[in-house]
């Protein structure tokens, strides 16, 4: 029971790290980036290549995955995304689906369509007993790392100058510009950072979520649920939404395998009926 | 006899911590030509939004002809005879003025749900739309796309569109703003010529227009009703002048 809960939390925390970049893109730039998962996939494949081809330590792969995904994000933001911030949502949707398709087919071409496996360092594999509960070491590692990241994010947003600029820009773009904030730079950095986090999440999640070229398509719905349920105005909203989703998904698949795959859709529908404006959305519309 | 058609009770609306509408209790009589004035940012538009259901109030009630409509959707309020114009044009850019007004008439007549009959086959609707547009000087442009019309024409369409619903209570949010000088009086004349039992609530900054049009005036300041009275009372009230001169000069 507790093990399931534990796994669910690890899963949810991963989802949060994966999706939180998307909440910022959405809240800040009002951009619906369905290709967010592609950045995560990039991080995952970087890890696979570095570990399996070059034998580099898993611990080095994580920052590398972050950096590479962030750089890809930065380049794409500057070259393509930035032109579409004002575009209708339909355009953003079409554009980012296009990116997803290209990423999926491209990855398939270079890496093949099979599921990728990584060999975790021995100290992270296997299980151990913590107060009578069997926990996977890697899941514990994931939870600790993701929790640290979430706290760091919260602190960055609430305590630093960049964070306050970011929040100013999220609240009102024109006001932010009036205050002399260089909005395009804030946007670009944020986009890169969000993509980097996705890349990191992809690297960490390769073990738990699996990794194959269809990753961006498979997890698109999870990201959308986290973001629309959690809202875009806080860190805690998406965090709780991701946890809820992770626990429900894992528990559903474990206890009622027959309807397990439907748990997330059920959650989605219930949420729509009960709280159509998002579970943790700021009041009003 | 004075019968109250539109009433608010302790209406409040917050934006975050900011109180844009502060405990407004307003009564508008049937057939009144009621003006709502106040400096910019006083919350006049917000009040109209609350009355028409564009925004939900944080607290309080809205009553139309004695019935509580606080949680009624906009379109149902329009069906009950309450409509408005917007301070900032809210039009259908890709429609022509003719289509715009024809649709409003079709909805008023309850044929908007008709799936298969072409709208052009309702000749009565077309005729009425044409004459309404002609009345507002829009006949010559009725087949153009709205978005390419000059601002003044769009402004007139904004008002004509509210007329198309044949409201019994009409709320006008700075209708004259942006209407060319020479057409302003004409527009307000059309409003004045509405049947005596149509109630009009007018927001307007031009005091000459207000004093010539209104029979009753409410002054809104910082979200709350500052004072209310007849034209004579308000025009001679030094505090009102102070409010305007102090904050709007």
């Amino acid at each position, binding site marked *: 029971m507790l093990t399931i809960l534990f796994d669910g939390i690890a899963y949810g925390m991963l989802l949060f790290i994966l999706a939180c970049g998307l909440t910022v893109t959405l809240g800040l730039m009002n951009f619906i980036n369905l290709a967010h998962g592609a950045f995560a996939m990039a991080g995952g494949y970087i890890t696979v290549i570095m570990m399996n081809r070059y034998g580099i330590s898993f611990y080095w792969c994580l920052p590398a995955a972050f950096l590479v995904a962030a750089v890809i994000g930065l380049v794409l933001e500057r070259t393509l995304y930035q032109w579409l911030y004002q575009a209708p949502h339909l355009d953003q949707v079409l554009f980012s689906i296009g990116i997803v398709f290209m990423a999926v087919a491209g990855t398939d071409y270079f890496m093949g369509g099979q599921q990728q496996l990584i060999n975790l360092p021995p100290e992270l594999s296997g299980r151990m007993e913590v107060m009578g509960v069997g926990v996977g070491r890697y899941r514990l590692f994931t939870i600790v790392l993701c929790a640290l990241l979430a706290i760091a994010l919260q602190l960055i947003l609430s305590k630093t100058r960049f964070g306050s600029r970011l929040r100013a820009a999220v609240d009102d773009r024109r006001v932010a510009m009036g205050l002399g904030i260089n909005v395009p730079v804030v946007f670009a950095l944020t986009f890169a950072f969000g993509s980097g986090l996705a890349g990191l999440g992809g690297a960490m999640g390769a073990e738990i979520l699996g990794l194959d070229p269809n990753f961006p398509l498979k997890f698109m719905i999870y990201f959308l649920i986290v973001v629309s349920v959690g809202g875009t105005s806080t860190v805690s909203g998406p965090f709780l939404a991701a946890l809820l989703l992770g626990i429900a998904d894992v528990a559903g698949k474990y206890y009622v395998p027959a309807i397990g795959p439907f748990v997330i859709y059920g959650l989605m529908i219930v949420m729509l009926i009960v709280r159509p404006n998002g579970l943790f959305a700021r009041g009003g519309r | 006899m004075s019968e109250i058609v539109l009433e608010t009770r302790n209406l409040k609306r917050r934006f975050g911590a900011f109180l844009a509408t502060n405990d407004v209790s307003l009564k508008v009589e049937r057939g009144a030509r009621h003006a709502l004035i106040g400096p910019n940012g006083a919350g006049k538009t917000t009040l109209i939004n609350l009355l028409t259901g564009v925004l939900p109030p944080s607290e309080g009630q809205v009553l139309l002809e004695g019935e509580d409509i606080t949680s009624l959707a906009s379109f149902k309020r329009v069906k009950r005879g309450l409509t*408005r114009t917007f301070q900032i044009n809210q039009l259908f850019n890709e429609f022509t003025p003719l289509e715009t007004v024809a649709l409003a008439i079709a909805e008023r007549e309850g044929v908007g749900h008709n799936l298969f009959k072409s709208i052009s086959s309702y000749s009565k609707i077309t005729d009425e739309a044409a004459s309404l547009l002609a009345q507002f000087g829009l006949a010559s442009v009725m087949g153009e796309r709205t978005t390419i019309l000059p601002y003044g024409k769009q402004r007139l369409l904004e008002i004509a569109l509210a007329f198309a619903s044949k409201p019994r209570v009409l709320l006008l949010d700075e209708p004259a703003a942006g209407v060319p000088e020479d057409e302003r009086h004409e527009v307000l004349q*059309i409003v004045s010529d509405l049947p005596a039992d149509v109630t009009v609530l007018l927001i307007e900054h031009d005091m000459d227009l207000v004093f010539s049009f209104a029979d009753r005036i409410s002054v809104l300041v910082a979200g709350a009703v500052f004072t209310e009275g007849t034209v004579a009372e308000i025009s001679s009230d030094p505090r009102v002048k102070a409010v305007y001169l102090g904050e709007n000069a």
Partner: protein
Amino acid sequence: MSLVQEPAMTAPSTSPETTSRAAALMKRRSRIRFYEIIVWVAAIAAYFLLPTKMLILTEIAILALFAVSLDLVLGFAGIVSLGHTAFFGLGAYVAGLLALHYVAEPVTGLIVAGVISGVLGLLTSFLILRGSDLTRLMTTLGIGLMMAEVANQMAWLTGGADGLSGFSPTAILGLFEFDLFGQTGYLYCLAVLFVGTMIMRAIAFSPFGLSLKAIKGNPMRAGMIAVPARKRIVIAYTIAAVFAGMAGALLAQTTSFVSPDVLAFHRSADVLLVLVIGGTGYLYGGIFGAVFFTLIKDWLSVITPQYWMFYIGLLLVILVLIGRDRLARWVEYLPERFSKKEGGQ
């Protein structure tokens, strides 16, 4: 309390020319355009001129019906859907199962598939009423995926990953047998496409269709002229689901096979692409887009059978960056152009 009221303004001053000009303008909206005639003449000519191309022509007709149905949701009501294939796929399975177990007559299957898909559309339409574009994307995508998962889980009924086969439709209405070359199949699909397009065309020019565009154009003002937006969206979404289901049924009937691929996400994306290639908001965009898309995809799958998805993605990106509006405006340059004057999309 009645709505009836003294006419606020009788305007005896309205000149007769104004009135008749207004009538003419309104009539002109729904006039049959030149390109409409071209489309249908070309479709019939193709039957005689390209006897070896029946399969791809059939594919185009089915995709066109699917895309035209999406236009009602996207081009008219302004709802971006990532799961329109839920209805297409459901229609395909219903038609397949019906032919397999009960009635193999195609028109019956078509109607039943349309009705059942319509019921799903009606039920799910309530979920897309509220909320932002983002929530709607989530909802439509979720419903699409959920349907795919249902089909996958109910393998005993749907054949699971192997798909549904072993049925073959009998003669249409008991009169027209399907032939080996797909000629009957093409004419059948074309006829359904024609009837469907004509029905949706009538809707487009009705007060209802106009009110949908009003909701899309400015929902706040639409409310202020008494348009009951939710009711209208529910109806439009349901009708779109009916025709999408019928398109799916056509696919099942003409191929005698239902692959689980009918519910795959890429189909929802493809049909969006089809529609934006051809242009939204005037129905025929779905038909033009289907022709273009099917030909491109056919060509791509010959030169790069495995990775055509990459090029579809590239096409999407380019389409958006160039500006799909600009691309889709080509139809205006056809004789008797459609949208500039009349305020279509």
